[in-house]
């Protein structure tokens, strides 16, 4: 890594309240360009609220943040154009075909027709889905859907991709293939911001933050977190933090 570290995400004292309830409570962190950043926390810790803010979908109550160099308060449209997003629950349209989904997402991300055509062919080829490009998404196995959803989230070559539990319920082999796609993506300089409930996957991240009650309770490399909490695995670290 070079001396001048580029940050994809810079967050300072970011806070979001819903009435009296503070869902995200003065969080501060940076994510480097090309980093795989694991964003962990128990149910209800504030992860989803934080991610929705970082994607420009929810306005913060207070604090400061920049995502790909754009301000989270008044440049949310620019942010949306420069990020990719995929979640476990909602990623692709079940009643569109493989190809239609790619074209649809590329269109939404504002890609030019010719560029989108060639990118679509490259993508279908790389995933080996060419022969089934006219098959409905609803007929595909989950593992394929998730790999396709990930590639679709990257079709416009975003600076950052947000992955919200991308591997939930996926079989062990596909889960590992998926993570190799993540490694490859980060290797090419795209920043990966990922949440997961599988603690072994937390080990694959360059750095991991763990949210507890709206705050970031720990943030470091998996190795250093394990040292800090005298734990053998990230699972132990998580349990020590989330159930003190």
């Amino acid at each position, binding site marked *: 890594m070079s001396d001048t570290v580029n940050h994809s995400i810079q967050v300072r004292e970011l806070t979001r309240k819903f009435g009296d309830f503070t869902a995200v409570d003065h969080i501060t962190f940076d994510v480097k360009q090309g980093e795989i950043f694991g964003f962990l926390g*128990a149910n209800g810790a504030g992860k989803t609220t934080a991610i929705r803010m970082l994607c420009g979908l929810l306005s913060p109550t207070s604090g400061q943040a920049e995502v790909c160099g754009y301000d989270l308060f008044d440049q949310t449209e620019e942010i949306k154009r420069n990020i990719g997003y995929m979640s476990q629950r909602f990623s692709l349209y079940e009643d569109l075909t493989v190809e239609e989904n790619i074209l649809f997402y590329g269109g939404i991300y504002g890609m030019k027709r010719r560029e989108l055509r060639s990118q679509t062919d490259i993508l279908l080829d790389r995933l080996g889905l060419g022969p089934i490009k006219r098959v409905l998404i609803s007929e595909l196995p*989950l593992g394929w859907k998730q790999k396709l959803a990930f590639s679709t989230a990257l079709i416009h070559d975003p600076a950052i991709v947000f992955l919200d539990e991308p591997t939930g*319920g996926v079989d*062990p082999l596909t889960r590992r293939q998926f993570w190799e796609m993540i490694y490859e993506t980060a290797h090419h300089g795209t920043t990966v911001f990922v949440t997961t409930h599988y603690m072994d996957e937390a080990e694959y991240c360059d750095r991991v933050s763990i949210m507890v009650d709206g705050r970031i309770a720990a943030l470091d490399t998996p190795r250093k977190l394990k040292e800090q909490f005298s734990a053998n695995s*990230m699972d132990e670290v998580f349990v020590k933090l989330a159930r003190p």
Partner: protein
Amino acid sequence: MAEAMILAENLSKSYRKVKALTDINLEVKEGELFGLIGPDGAGKTSLIRILATLLLADKGRASLMGLDVVKDFRKVRQMIGYMPGRFSLYRDLTVEENIRLFATIFDTSLEDNYDLIRDIYVQIEPFRHRRAEALSGGMKQKLALCCALIHRPNILLLDEPTTGVDAVSRREFWEILAQMQKQGITILVSTPYMDEAGRCNRVALIHNSKILQIDSPANIEAGFGSPLYAVIGQDTYRLLQHLRQYPHSGTVYPFGDSIHYTDQRGEINTADLAEWLRRQGHANIEVLPIAPNIEDCFMALGSSQPDASSYV
């Protein structure tokens, strides 16, 4: 031999072109905590719904305590507690109202069965006047379990109770299941989390509508075909690529902070491999023989995806 509490014989089920279950045979003994372990789409929910008398199989038969799930479905329903994968309680009723509603349906009361659910109920009691929809994921699961237990069922059928629940709540839920087992309840529970297999007496590994293996987690692990090694280094991504290029490499899978490796030659001199990796530019390499876990076994037993041609 103890009586079979749950018996499935040659069960098959399809949804149009999609095979959900292919020739499933399994037997759960009295007092067992039995895990049905596999990824989404493996067929877990179809199997549990057939056993819960909510879905008809295309072929085969199933019985619970000797009662047929089709012919004797009314009796079967009295004996089972069923917790579906999707939260299915009444969202606009409070915690206590939900429990009392289910108790009334089964012609019993919260007070009559309080001893059975006490350990779980005390955890949600502080929220007893809260609407079910306002509970956290872990609390919802505990409430659903209370409702499934309120009529003192002989058998619990739990469909993915720990999916989408955080690591801490998952642990708590399995501790509760161990207590239920001590009360003599037979439990069939499904999960996509391979690491939860160790909590069960026996498990069925299920994938692509078929059962791969049924046994105790220890026996399944002992049956892993070849010596397994953990390779630990600094740069996992490059390490993966180099290990695959090693002339004798078998399987190479990332597992948390290490890589699980098998060699085509079986047992190897670990120092040789470490030295080869050092020559590829890796520092601080460790290669250690390790015991396989359920996830290693699951992948070895054939978790491969069908290729694109089978979907054309």
